[in-house]
């Protein structure tokens, strides 16, 4: 079933100043029989915020882990991953030895996982986590702790109280924020977050997003935000990448993706999302379910669920091609998709880009 295939990045999608470039990044757990990340290529621009959106089991966490070469064993990561720090050099991430990889992680590229409680050691106070991290990377501990205090107050936490607490003494939202501060203490350039707010209530999620926005500005960070919750990142991300069945379905600027979603899956996903403004009778679940890696259909992975599928879709996977300025889609039927799958919130967008709506009486 595993056809050797490569998917490049369309020229228009190549970043001017990429911080990290993935080329045909693929992850397999059975020596190439099936892929849980299926030859994905994407550039991340320096200082941008990219939201990677997909359902559970779409391979989005694999994409995040691939950026740090941190695929859980015994997974095998292939392809080309190039990290470009600000000084003009290029680092081949998959070529680093263990020691180099250790310093790349956290000092250059840092990662935050969901469920802060399992990232902290329950027997250590929060400040010991900071100390341990600083020591492990041979950093100046005192200067580091000062930075920690500043990061914590950037995240609306009281540094003394939080640093002197055990993880269980903090609420879920506070733990997650403390973890974000910990991930930034070594001043990384790129922060990869895998569902960092998933276990929290909406109000805390939204608050954390707002704080992340402030952090990004203050510390010139590049952020990759992985989530299954499309509307959550929509307000925050510069660009969005939609994943379906271990491949990228669509990548584009956030507003462009929401207003002119080209892939039938993206449009179905947008329509299935409960939101406060769409007419209630037009929210629709997506029929069917997404495929497992060992059961990947031939051709476009979405074709069994797609109302527009033709014989072409069933036999050959569509290439990932430019479908607009800065917008790429892997689909043969983009025009039909836009034509025949109306978005249930279209009325709301029709005021020509002027986004005043919602709160006005």
């Amino acid at each position: 079933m595993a056809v050797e295939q490569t998917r490049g990045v369309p020229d228009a999608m190549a970043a001017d100043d990429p911080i990290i470039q993935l080329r045909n990044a693929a992850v397999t757990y059975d020596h190439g029989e099936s892929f849980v990340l299926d030859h994905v290529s994407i550039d991340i621009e320096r200082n941008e915020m990219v939201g990677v959106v997909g359902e559970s089991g779409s391979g989005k966490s694999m994409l995040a882990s691939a950026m740090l070469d941190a695929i859980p064993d015994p997974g095998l990561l292939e392809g080309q991953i190039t990290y470009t720090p600000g000084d003009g050099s290029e680092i081949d991430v998959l070529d680093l030895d263990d020691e180099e990889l250790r310093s790349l992680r956290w000092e250059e590229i840092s990662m935050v996982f969901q469920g802060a409680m399992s990232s902290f050691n329950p027997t250590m106070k929060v400040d010991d986590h900071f100390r341990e991290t600083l020591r492990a990377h041979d950093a100046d501990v005192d200067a580091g702790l000062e930075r920690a205090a500043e990061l914590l107050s950037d995240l609306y936490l009281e540094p003394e109280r939080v640093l002197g607490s055990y993880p269980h003494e903090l609420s879920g939202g506070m733990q997650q924020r403390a973890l974000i501060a910990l991930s930034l203490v070594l001043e990384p350039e790129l922060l990869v977050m895998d569902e960092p707010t998933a276990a929290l209530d909406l109000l805390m999620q939204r608050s954390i997003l707002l704080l992340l926005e402030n952090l990004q500005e203050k510390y010139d960070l590049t952020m990759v935000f992985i989530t299954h919750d499309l509307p959550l990142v929509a307000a925050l991300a510069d660009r969005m990448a939609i994943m379906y069945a271990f491949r990228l379905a669509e990548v584009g600027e956030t507003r462009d993706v929401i207003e002119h979603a080209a892939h039938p899956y993206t449009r179905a996903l947008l329509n299935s999302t409960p939101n406060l403004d769409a007419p209630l009778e037009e929210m629709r679940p997506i029929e069917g379910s997404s495929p497992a890696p060992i059961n990947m259909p031939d051709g476009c992975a979405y074709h069994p669920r797609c109302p527009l599928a033709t014989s072409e879709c069933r036999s050959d996977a569509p290439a990932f091609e430019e479908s607009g300025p800065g917008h790429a889609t892997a689909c043969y039927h983009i025009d039909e998709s836009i034509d025949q799958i109306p978005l249930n919130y279209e009325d709301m967008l029709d005021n020509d880009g002027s986004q005043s709506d919602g709160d006005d009486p």
Partner: protein
Amino acid sequence: MSSQPVLSLDGVEVHFENKRGLLDFGAEDETVRAVDGVTIDIEERDVVSLIGESGCGKTTLGKTCIGLQRPTGGTVRYRGQDMWDIRDGKSQSDLEWSDIRQSLQIIHQDPGAALNPNRRLISILSEPLRQVSPHLSKSEKRERIYSLLEHVGMNPAADFAERYPHQLSGGEQQRVALCRALLMNPDVILADEAISALDVSLRVEMMDLMLDLQDEFDTSYVFISHDLSNARYFTEHGDGKIGVMYLGQLVESGPAEQLINEPKHPYTEVLRWATPDLSLQQTGEMPMRKIDIPDPIDPPSGCRFHTRCPEAREVCRQQTPETYQVDGNGQRAACFRRDESHEYWDSPELTD
């Protein structure tokens, strides 16, 4: 059918005592005020959604509604009878505690943990039938179960009935949990974050199913969620009301669309701000002065939201607002700003 509500809560309080340990010399016993003075009615075929942040007491209130949690103050009436008097045998009513418990059911957030992993679906679903209709023959039970499974979209039912819970997807497990609750012929089902663990794309489907079955089985739902857009979908379709909880109190309640479009309590506006939508508005400033919810052990004086409220004034710290009626449609809010002649308007703004 009388207009009497199925459940009627009046001034309900649930306080948890946190006894001091042997080693905490000198420490005071702490009281967690999980629910503090809530009054709410649940009618026949009603939908009541409770929303609020983690720790606001919505689950405790939900459990109090269906008799799983005994209130430390106030009364919970089932069809006009105090259910805890019946429980204690203090009531002359001919209602039995077991009948009440049977008619008030729950579905949990994590269906995987709610279904016995060692039993097939047919055996899981036979259990409620054995309780409700012990006279049914084995084949009658089987028929009832199959038709319900088909109804919730689990085809072929005969195949599904022989499966174990782990052989189902999360959405299917939740549907089985719903079936199990419905087979008890309940008057009220508490759905405690019942769709939160499902993928976003499956949530609408599950809510549709629940509403569809409501018509069939004549039940009411108490729907607990932290997501305003889900609560809106469920409540509006079920023609019910939303109650907004903050630190154990009901701060605003009303019909879904009205409450969302014209929130009358600053906290409801905060929740609306927190609800993502696709209109791509800039998130802008946070409409709150503090991010973290205060400790329910020692809730703030006066209006409990005053420590975070962007509109708070001095008087909010000193006085507790009553619940004001807003307009005709049954919308209510506990905020001084709803009273145009209140001294709030002359009170100095809180700054900290």
